[in-house]
């Protein structure tokens, strides 16, 4: 890999040992990829909050040691300087206000709070969300980014036309300190054209439809670049957020095109750069039905212990929709309804009275984390329901629970009645 003079200087230690270790990691990583060079980035989203589980394996409880080991893969504990690139904390392990509800111990809470303070001191913006694009980090078309979080990567690549691969903790940590990332994969314009043409033969209207379509496409194309033909109703942020998250979970989709709607393709021809699709797929009512059944295949018991909304993190609009669906109703005594949102939106939801309304109905507004990332559920939870294809894909596997998938209305109904009554309409 060719290094620019500033990159070579960082590798040689001109900016200290931690920056040299970061550059060393990027060089090792770039060479494995077969990248020819690095590219500048001033937009890095990574996950750098550590609890006692992380620090105890470093041989030292210090936050410098944890960052050096877990975020840089450095060979030894190093003093870490302030970050160079604009850097953002993604979703983390703990809701700083509802940690007790999560079942976090006071010691573990203190460790995460200390890690947050350390990140803040180093200039990492504490967004604490899987959807940075909802709370101010909205990359522009063509911008080179270094983001973790598959649902965020597919959103900014596709909807906004920014450029990032799915990065990991160590590559984002190194990018934060250097402002560099390997120029490979979706950073290169020639890799951003479609591979599969999907003929969408079913009206795709609500969030459930978009989740089903995304999950099905991910299973079909794996890491391909699907191009959707036949979309007639313009989707909003929420629908595309659910679509991308589902496609990234069932497959490994990091980029898709909806010609005329997403950033980089006005037409199908443009999406394929004039070439023929490598493969053609047809989404029919039968595929829609099968995908719905597949997503509900772990659900057996009708009694629902927890309804989870906010995967990826809910918008203000989604929170308001839950509030309206709950109007005049109350969450069942044997169920819970948890809504997850970015930390910043929680503030607005409180100003708007949504948080109070949720609590008055027996629901709960949470932030910063989610049950899959934080690996927590209400005690005794055996059955969950969610409007997120991604969450119902992961949570039964991670937490050994049954999962139901349906519309937001089905989910709120389940929370109010304590019973799953969803069906595909």
């Amino acid at each position, binding site marked *: 890999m060719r290094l620019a003079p500033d990159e070579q200087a960082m590798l040689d230690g001109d900016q200290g040992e931690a920056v040299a270790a970061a550059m060393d*990691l990027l060089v*090792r990583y770039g060479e494995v990829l077969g990248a020819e060079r690095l590219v500048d980035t001033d937009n890095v989203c990574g996950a750098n909050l550590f609890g006692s589980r992380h620090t105890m394996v470093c041989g030292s409880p210090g936050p410098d040691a944890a960052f050096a080991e877990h975020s840089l893969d450095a060979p030894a504990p190093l003093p870490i300087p302030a970050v160079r690139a604009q850097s953002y904390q993604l979703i983390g392990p703990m809701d700083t206000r509802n940690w007790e509800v999560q079942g976090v111990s006071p010691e573990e809470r203190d460790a995460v709070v200390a890690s947050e303070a350390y990140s803040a001191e180093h200039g990492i913006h504490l967004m604490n969300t899987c959807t940075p694009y909802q709370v101010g980090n909205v990359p522009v078309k063509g911008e080179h980014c270094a983001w973790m979080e598959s649902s965020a990567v597919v959103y900014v690549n596709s909807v906004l036309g920014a450029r990032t691969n799915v990065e990991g903790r160590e590559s984002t940590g190194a990018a934060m300190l250097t402002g560099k990332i390997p120029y490979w994969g979706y950073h290169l314009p020639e890799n951003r054209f479609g591979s599969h043409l999907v003929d969408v033969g079913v009206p795709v209207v609500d969030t459930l439809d978009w989740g089903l379509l995304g999950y099905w496409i991910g299973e079909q194309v794996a890491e391909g670049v699907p191009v959707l033909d036949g979309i007639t109703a313009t989707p909003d942020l929420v629908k595309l957020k659910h679509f991308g998250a589902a496609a990234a979970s069932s497959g490994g989709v990091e980029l898709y095109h909806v010609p005329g709607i997403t950033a980089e393709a006005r037409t199908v021809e443009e999406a394929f750069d004039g070439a023929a699709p490598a493969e053609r797929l047809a989404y029919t009512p039968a595929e829609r039905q099968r995908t719905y059944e597949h997503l509900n295949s772990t659900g057996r018991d009708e009694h629902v212990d927890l309804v989870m909304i906010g995967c990826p993190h809910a918008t203000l609009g989604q929170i308001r929709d839950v509030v309206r669906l709950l109007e005049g109703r109350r969450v069942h005594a044997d169920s819970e309804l948890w809504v997850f949102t970015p930390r910043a939106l929680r503030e607005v939801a409180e100003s708007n009275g949504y948080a109070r309304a949720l609590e008055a109905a027996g629901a709960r507004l949470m932030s910063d984390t989610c049950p899959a990332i934080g690996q927590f559920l209400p005690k005794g939870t055996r059955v969950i329901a969610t409007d997120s294809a991604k969450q119902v894909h992961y949570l039964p*596997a991670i937490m050994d629970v049954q999962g139901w998938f349906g519309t937001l209305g089905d989910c709120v109904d389940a929370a109010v009645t304590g019973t799953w009554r969803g069906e595909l309409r």
Partner: protein
Amino acid sequence: MSTRTLHGRGLVGGVAEGEALVTTEALSGWGGVEPRRGRVIELRHELVGQSFAGKVLVFPGAKGSSGWSGMFHMSRLMGTAPAAMVFTTMNTKIALGVVVTRVPALTDLDGDPLTSVRTGDWVRVDADRGELTVLRTTG
């Protein structure tokens, strides 16, 4: 005793020998493996419940969340990492994953390792020379 050798691209240097653990299914890191015991936990994966600790993991590569590298990184810190990794499909998850796992790693072999090697075979990975050698088969 006959031996078979495949040649490819060494990614992370070093030499390791061990029992092969082979799968034709890509592995999830976050949510798919448990580093404390170095086990696969993804429910629908053919290796579910099996340990890769100290074995030569032969697999297509990485799928799933961007937490992939972090889980294998953790397995190294906990002493449950594979002895070596041999894979066929490159992406950013597996690239970063093998770098931070810091075990000998190979790809771009001149034969398909997923069919040339079977679970239980005793294999040697020489990533400095770019060689995967089956020293003893399960018979």
